[in-house]
């Protein structure tokens, strides 16, 4: 079980949150990339054995959206929002 650091509520149980998906690449200018690069932007997300950046929604809490770095091997949260306690 994760203890996810919410900037308003502090460390809260994972079951209060809804997973918001991985943080993907920055949206490129569609006119500046070719089709292959556009498809890669749409479908490919990093899948490392290590830290991933992801969004979580404190839906059953204060409603805040936040971004954390979490290690996919250990579930350790490496980096939390700046003002999280």
């Amino acid at each position, binding site marked *: *079980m994760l203890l996810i650091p919410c900037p308003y509520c502090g460390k809260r*149980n*994972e*079951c209060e*949150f*809804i*997973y918001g998906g*991985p943080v993907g690449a920055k949206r490129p200018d569609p006119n500046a990339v070719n*089709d*292959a690069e556009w*498809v*890669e932007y*749409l*479908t*490919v*997300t990093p*899948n490392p*054995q290590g830290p*991933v950046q*992801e969004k979580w929604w404190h839906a059953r809490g204060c409603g805040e959206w936040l971004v954390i770095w*979490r290690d*996919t*091997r*250990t*579930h350790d949260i490496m980096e939390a929002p700046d003002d999280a306690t």
Partner: protein
Amino acid sequence: MQKYSVLSLARNAFSGHRNWSPAWRSPPLKNRYDVVVIGAGGHGLATAYYLAKEFGITDVAVLERGWLGGGNIARNTVTIRSNYMRDESIPFYVKSVAMFEGLTHELNFNMMHSKRTMVDVVQTWPKLRELRRRQLVMDIYGSTYEQITSEELRRRIPALTGGGPDARLPVICGMVHTDAGVNRHDAVAWGYARAADARGVEIHQQTAVQSLLRSRHGTIEGVETNRGTIRANKVVVAVSGHTTTLTETAGLKLPLRTMNLTAFVSEPVQPLVDVIVNCPDSGFYFSQSDKGEMVIGGAPDMGQSFRRDIKQHVFEDTVTAMLSLFPSFKKLKLMRQWGGHLDISHDASPIMDQTDIAGLFVTAGWWGGYKAIPAGGLTLAHLVAKGEPHPLMASFTMDRFRHLDFVMEAGTTTAR
């Protein structure tokens, strides 16, 4: 291959079971093969078997990091079914279910196949609409789905005592998929391994592939393992959750994310439920094994994961949902739990294709890949041998991403 039969059993019983020949060899590792298959799981072994049997390619090595059949083929709930949603998917799984039913005979290995029917417990009207839509598509391709009343449902599953009119989600009706069954996962791995070995395929356990090797021209050249370099012009990656870990060593990105899906097992009890029960609205499914254990599964962990454990709240959510429909299961003691990491593709359908790196083939994105082992192995072997996709799997190549022509299957599995 020593044929297994009543006679061979009797003969070996009289000699004290000391003279059984090994089911497969442990040959020395060569430094070159025609085809290297990475991963001695269901898909890897089946691909090697059909390469040898259907296409006469026998200079094949299956490399396995751990032990044969110890990955996701040992970490699932052995459900074999074909109630999918899309025109592309259903014929593929219908073929796979049919192949599974003939596998005991084909491989001369008892699969303990039990075609016991799967019953969906429907608790919301949107789910019923979705399942009836699936029923209409499945009718076209020869799969079976049939609606039954809640009275009939409770008659067939007496343990289903929850979900009454006062429940938050009252049971509306059931949907019956008579093609579904379960079998013995070890037998599938061992049967394919033994039959492939008999046709000349080499299986090398404790041989971890560390990276893929590319030639100067960019094509695949072989693999680097903990036992040295092995060269091959065709390499098949059949490693489930570790697909991207391997392909990234060759600089190839794939639209896959690795997630953890868990299951757990109760103590054995008297025969109680003779079908596979799936409760999509509550979010759990179970069947009773031949030993009497309840084999129970729920939803995957949220977020990517390379861990093979179970999270407490995933476990609690699954048990809570189960007890709302099957309150008598409260008395069950749980014995074991496990997780497996699977890779899910962008549209929740599998990917079987030759990649941008010539000679490098992947079979990945198998969410519920156990049921797909025979057809997946056969069609991938076709692709590797002939260089063009088998008609049954032509929709599952990478082309669908290039054309944004997805085969969306989220919802027909536990994927979310």
